[in-house]
């Protein structure tokens, strides 16, 4: 269940994501949870602390504490920055010191609408044509798809590190690190 997008938008987002990073033998964007990453980012301020920065120093995947799942508290300026980025300036004077800012929520709402209410029913080639026609939005979507796919799972994508395993990447390795031999030898 999406936390910020509505169900129709989430379906379109999922269909679009699966064209950008399709599944093959291993998970594509949808199987890895990328739409949840994006929806969680758009709704970052619906949870406390906002899901902007995962904590440290380790995730627990290679020992140590599960610090990534404790998200950082934001300062007033951090919150201003991330509300501007996600929600936009919304005409609020304290967010418009350099003029209006269009937030990601608006970008997604408009971009998903531009893909069309029939997007999910199109065949793949037609979906790709729509994605190319909305190039500016698709560029933002692809940037976020890559983050959700290959970022830490605590942000909502890369479920069970499926995307890291597919590329033989261990991800965060503290406190394990790598031995001298692992660094210096083939």
């Amino acid at each position, binding site marked *: 269940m999406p936390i910020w997008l509505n169900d129709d938008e989430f379906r379109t987002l999922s269909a679009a994501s699966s064209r950008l990073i*399709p599944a093959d033998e291993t998970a594509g964007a949808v199987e890895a949870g990328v739409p949840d990453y994006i929806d969680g980012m758009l709704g970052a301020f619906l949870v406390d602390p906002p899901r902007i920065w995962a904590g440290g120093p380790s995730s627990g995947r290679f020992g140590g504490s599960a610090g990534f799942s404790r998200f950082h508290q934001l300062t007033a300026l951090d919150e201003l920055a991330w509300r501007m980025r996600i929600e936009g300036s919304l005409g609020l004077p304290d967010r418009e010191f350099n003029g209006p800012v269009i937030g990601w929520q608006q970008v997604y709402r408009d971009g998903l609408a531009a893909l069309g209410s029939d997007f999910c029913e199109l065949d793949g080639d037609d979906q790709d044509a729509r994605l190319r026609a909305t190039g500016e939005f698709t560029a933002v979507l692809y940037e976020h798809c890559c983050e959700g796919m290959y970022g830490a799972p605590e942000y909502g994508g890369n479920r069970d590190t499926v995307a890291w395993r597919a590329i033989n990447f261990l991800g965060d390795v503290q406190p394990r690190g790598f031995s001298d031999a692992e660094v210096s030898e083939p």
Partner: protein
Amino acid sequence: MTVDAVIVGSGPGGATAADVLTRAGWTVTIIEKGRNHLLDPDNPSRLAQDYSNDEIKFMHRHFLGPDPLIEPRTFRLSEDDGERAYVGAVNSIPSTVGGGGTHADGKVPRLRPEDFRLHSTYGPVEDAAVADWPVDYDELEPYYAEVERLIGVAGTAGANPFAAWRSGPYPMPSGTPMYGAVLSSAAAEARGLHPYAAPTAANSIPYDGRPACNNCGHCAYFGCPIHAKGDPVAMLQHALSTGRAELLSETFVSRVRTNGREATGVDVIGPDGVERTLGARHVVIAGGAIETPRLLLLSGLEHPLIGRYLMMHFQTINVGIMPQRLHAHRGRSVTHVHDDCMLVDDDARAAARAAGLPWIRGGLVEHGGGGHPVMEAQFYPWGPHHKKLMADSPLRDRLWAFIMQGEDLPQTTNRVDLDPTVRDARGFAVARITFRPHRHELVASAHHGPRHIRVLEDMGATWTTTTTSPLVPGAATESPFGDDGGGSYRGPVSAIPASRHVMGTTRMGTDPTTSVVDAYGRMHELPNVVIADSSVFVTSAGYGPTLTLVALAARAAAALAG
């Protein structure tokens, strides 16, 4: 309360000044506009647990600041662009306790004697303000040795045949070489180059109460989760543990207050948004070569050279894709470098002459591998080939690069001033950067690039290319994916130098008409204001500026304390 010194900025320069001054018995207040993710100021042996191997947080979400929405900068190539051509992130060195030391991968070379004497060694260059420094290597050497011990530097004396003399060994032996660097060092040597283990501020053994680096591979752009990196944590710990230093984070200095003859303190805005004045007998400014001149200009100081001669290394990036996997995600981002391109040899002289220049100098060449997977993924096109490319990983696991940090000559037109209209979230004018490389940098880049392509081919590269940062108009770069891969000149954004090595802007010298500060960083017009960062550099050499700015800060602070 009036402290002996207010120190603006908690990065390597400010932290070092704090350490030296508190050791001399001074009381200091260190002011940092960013957040504190480094240590507990009340119990500085307790280090924070906020850093992590998290690409999202460090590389895509501005965790170390500055956030370009809150603290933007503006950029233009020249006045022909109008008031500005771009608003956003321009050369963002972290805005956080520890400053640029926190995200750097900690290569900390010394300069060599001739780097301080370019004018007398090689002579002037047209349209550049080449000059000698008012301090030379021999004078600075004891401070280099001291700050290598403070930061904790691993290295191998004698490994670099072109290195300057040194009074003692490195505090720690060199760390583990990366596999790719083992290959690239052998190939470079076979071509007559002289690679060596880079002097690195990452612990190769437990040092000063902090552990040895465990090669996690998240070094450049990341804070160190186990505090094995020589970000200025040690100097901040030393200063705070004297009980004579206070650290105010999330506090912005908006103005240096003066009575016309000397500084009397600073105006600050704290995390509560309230403005107040802190009295101080001395003001040490270490905001970096962009924020330092911005503060001086916000304070109404009027020396015509404030902000001038901004320098940023001109990067020549020679990339090869190898048949085998190099796993550069293990280790310290860069473990080997060579100095050969710093030499003004017969070939370099001939290339200079052919271009109508008296001489050219390149810079330190880093042997480095690919980055992290989110960034890699964004380079590949979307669609059915995406996952195959990620699995095959030409741009991460099979990539090797020689990156030259080319000497950038000082030009009066390259500068920092105050943007006429763009503001930060607190309402203050932001720094505007006006910058374009000198012809010298382009000629040096074109001269030194090709031989690195030959080394990459010797290593077995199946595909190679050369690009630069900044890109220059007319430049186009090949991509292995058919399209231009983002590597072609696309206006001002690609003209913004990627190098985080910023220098110049309050040049030091003995003559108040041609310099802003003296040989000890004291402002000619306000002698109780000391600049303790790379703003004071006269020329840029081709080496990362950190160790030199720290040595200068230690020397300036020692002089200040008498």
